[in-house]
């Protein structure tokens, strides 16, 4: 096989990690091979934090996922803390009665310097390895990583001024719509999302205000959500990321929740968390994405919910006629809670 990415040395392993995560990390990185996700978690700074650290990562690699091998790479200036975390985590994973993955190598990385804590060897990351990994991942269409996790937050900030000026009129327009007009508006949203997928044509300010004005409705969200898939997630993250940057604060939460969903489906857990952190209050979609992230659910598993429901189309059509008024009545109600047991009010609704 000639088109494999060659990770045959510590340098190449270290150089590959920012491309895998999307940013240059601090903390513990568990790089999985042979299935399962790659994980990043802060290095614990107290015994209580160490217990939680070991519980979280043991659950991921001993119970929820079963990779063949996990390489442990601890990033930080605090060598003692990094080595202690490496040793404790390595012990937790290999002492699992044969249920755990192979573990190794175990590396402490401080800047460009690495130390193999099992072999006692040291080295400096070869710039050539970084260049090679950059080229390899670029060939796979991966976006170049940002310098720090915090840069993911900065990338979600923008200027909402232009859309804010247009938003009141867009919201008034939505409120004046009858059922048929709202259905047409939802159809326009779906078509506009499809157009973006084909042409990458970003929304004008008027279109952005129009989308943001309708997205508080479950019907509009459903039209957007049902276009999600793991395959489409990267493109839809561009769409919703653009809206998060341009949205006024009062309508930004839903765009951030949509970005969290597309990021999660794309396998980018850090970006999904950062999007969720943008929300100002609880949101039904963001609450579900949070649960999926917290449970370390593989997005391929949750993607099943996005497959067409064989009964969905006729039910959706029938529901359309009696839900818009219902929707309006509930616009000022508190939405149903973040529980996952299906309890609480549920719209049946594709209306706005």
């Amino acid at each position, binding site marked *: 096989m000639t088109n494999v990415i060659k990770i045959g040395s510590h340098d190449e392993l270290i150089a590959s990690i920012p491309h895998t995560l999307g940013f240059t990390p601090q903390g513990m990185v568990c790089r999985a091979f042979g299935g399962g996700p790659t994980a990043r978690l802060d290095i614990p700074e107290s015994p209580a934090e160490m217990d939680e650290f070991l519980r979280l*990562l043991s659950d991921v690699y001993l*119970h929820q996922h079963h990779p063949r091998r996990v390489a442990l790479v601890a990033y930080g200036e605090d060598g003692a803390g990094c080595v202690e975390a490496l040793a404790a985590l390595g012990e937790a994973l290999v002492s699992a009665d044969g249920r755990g993955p192979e573990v190794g190598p175990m590396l402490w990385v401080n800047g460009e310097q690495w130390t193999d804590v099992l072999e006692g060897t040291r080295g400096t990351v070869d710039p050539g390895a970084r260049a090679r990994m950059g080229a390899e991942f670029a060939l796979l269409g991966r976006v170049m990583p940002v310098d720090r996790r915090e840069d993911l937050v900065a990338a979600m900030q923008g200027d909402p001024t232009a859309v804010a000026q247009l938003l009141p009129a867009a919201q008034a327009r939505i409120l004046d719509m009858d059922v048929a007009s709202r259905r047409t508006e939802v159809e326009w949203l779906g078509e506009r999302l499809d157009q973006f997928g084909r042409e990458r044509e970003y929304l004008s300010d008027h279109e952005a205000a129009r989308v943001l004005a309708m997205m508080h409705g*479950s019907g509009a969200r459903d039209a957007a959500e049902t276009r999600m898939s793991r395959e489409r997630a990267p493109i839809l993250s561009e769409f919703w990321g653009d809206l998060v940057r341009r949205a006024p604060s009062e309508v930004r939460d839903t765009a951030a929740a949509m970005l969290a969903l597309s990021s999660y489906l794309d396998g980018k*857990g850090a970006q999904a968390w950062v999007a969720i952190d943008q929300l100002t209050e609880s949101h039904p979609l963001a609450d*579900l994405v949070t649960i999926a992230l917290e*449970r370390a659910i593989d997005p391929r598993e949750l993607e099943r*919910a996005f497959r067409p429901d064989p009964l969905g189309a006729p039910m959706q059509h029938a529901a359309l006629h009696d839900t818009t008024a219902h929707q309006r009545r509930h616009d000022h109600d508190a939405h149903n809670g973040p529980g996952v047991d299906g309890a609480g*009010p*549920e*719209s049946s609704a594709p209306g706005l």
Partner: protein
Amino acid sequence: MQNTRSRLEKRLARQLAAPSRLARLTAGSTSLDLVYLDEETQDRLDSRSRE
């Protein structure tokens, strides 16, 4: 101001309703970042690691 769940959100909620021993895995301020590579990238990395 938010409202009720969409159809897909209800399906997601049902799918997430199954009991999980990992519930509230990262409760509190700890955010565990998990990255799932696409199949093509994962396959290439795994292929090399077996060589």
